[in-house]
């Protein structure tokens, strides 16, 4: 058996041990860089597709989008956002006319952070769509914030001023009221609160209606 022969052999020198580990680490490093380089394009495209799909979903009538970075008091198109810089996505129709913003927001839910994206039409001051990007709400109850079609549809034309209010199911009357979800009141109210807070945060950052940044065709636009 090899195990016994190894045991009987003299202890290898430290140099040999270090060399073995170094070679192993080197080969491993090369392999990891290889797989990283090989998968990077696919992963980047996947993420871009996912984001675009979400933006198109929350902004009806939009076919093209671009990221808008908020820097020094204005929205810049075609800029790489630095870390922690606020970003919204502008949605444009086929002719390149501005339709609305898709604004990402996040906040505490019942279990963990809920991350969402909502479509906002500044000319009508309305929320026009909402999509949950990440959530760990309770399966069967809290996860209705993205599984309950009726609730999601409730965001298709919702006034954000005065702020959105989640009311008991079947009692929404005013433009800014939405039916909460039975059995998931806390998660539903969390979603509404996230949108309200994000709206307040962005209210003064967005340019007045009509002065939105124009669509800049990037070279690698899909």
């Amino acid at each position, binding site marked *: 058996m090899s195990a016994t022969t190894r045991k009987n052999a003299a202890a290898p020198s430290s140099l040999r041990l270090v060399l073995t580990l170094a070679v192993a680490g080197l080969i491993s490093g090369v392999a990891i860089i290889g797989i990283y380089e090989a998968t990077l394009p696919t992963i980047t495209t996947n993420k871009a597709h996912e984001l675009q799909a979400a933006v198109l979903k929350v902004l009806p009538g939009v076919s093209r989008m671009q990221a808008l970075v908020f820097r020094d008091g204005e929205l810049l198109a075609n800029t790489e956002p630095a870390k922690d810089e606020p970003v919204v996505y502008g949605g444009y129709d086929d002719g390149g006319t501005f339709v609305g913003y898709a604004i990402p927001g996040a906040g505490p839910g019942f279990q963990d952070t809920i991350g969402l994206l909502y479509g906002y039409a500044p000319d009508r001051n309305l929320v026009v769509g909402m999509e949950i990007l990440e959530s760990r709400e309770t399966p*069967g*109850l809290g996860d209705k914030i993205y599984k309950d079609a009726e609730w999601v549809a409730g965001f298709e034309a919702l006034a954000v001023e005065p702020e959105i209010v989640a009311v008991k199911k079947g009692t929404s009357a005013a433009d800014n009221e939405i039916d909460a979800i*039975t*059995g998931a009141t*806390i998660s539903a109210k969390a979603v509404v609160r996230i949108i309200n807070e994000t709206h307040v945060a962005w209210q003064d950052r967005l340019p007045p209606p009509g002065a939105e940044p124009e669509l800049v065709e990037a070279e690698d636009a899909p």
Partner: protein
Amino acid sequence: MTEKEPKLLLFHAPLLRQDMTTARVMREVIIALLPAAGAAVWFFGFTALLVIGASIAGAVAAEWLFAPRESRGASLLDGSGLLTGLLLGLTLPPGLPMWMAFLGGFAGICLGKVIWGGLGHNLFNPALLGRAFLQATFPIAMTTWTPPAPGEFGVLSGNLALPFMQAGVDGVTAATPLGLLKFEQEVTPLLSLATGNTGGSLGEASGLLLLLGGIFLWIRRDFDWRIPVSILLTVAVFSAVLGLFDAERFPTPLFSIFSGGLLLGAIYMATDPVTSPVTPRGAWIFGIGIGVLVMLIRVFGGLPEGVMYAILLMNAATPLIDRYTQPRVFGREAKSP
């Protein structure tokens, strides 16, 4: 036959035998619960019989299935499975499908008793564990309360749902008095609370009959009176103190005592001799702990009712309480654990 007097009798301990057997205590607790169960039938109709019957069937079935073959009869005869099923049934909402009640009884005995090694070895109250299992498994069905219909003796269609299927909606649902207070700031009149004419689970409805059963158990010395007394006193004091701050927002002491499952829990579940401390001092600590937890959950927590979790939490603390309240052995130092 012709032995001479006086004769010398040789025994080993126990030398004193009483008729205080497990079976007797179980039987008397069941008797004490019967008036409340009867009230449940009066207020909710035969639906109460169906739900309670199903949960008893589940508990007894689990008891039978997991008992060793030799002692199957004995473990059924002591009535503890029957009592678990009855207690669980009384904590369930009236419209619950029978298959869920059956599952609750089954899970309660399995998780609450069998896996610990049977009666006397369990850490948690089996009936409450069954209810906690149901609450986590079917959160919507377990919080759908049907309003009472005194003297109509009907059956809710939800009870008859096929196994694994939903209850369906019976049309009318009602909030419990605690739910009304927490979410709608609406106070239910005390008279309805005391007689049981409110929405809620089958057994938590009729406070006065539950108290009556408790007095019966007290007279028969079937439980440690310190536990219910300390729970109820703590809850009363806690809500009286809260009332000093804001009488509008917080419940009155009587409302706190008669609403929700507090009486059922304090008299029949917290006093389970297996899962509560054995020393008098421990019993006081245990009861006060439950009372404080109940009020903390009700007033500051996200749920309208917290008796179940309060008792289960203090069940878990029972070995610790027993350890620190051991009476001093005569002749020893005060600090000798």
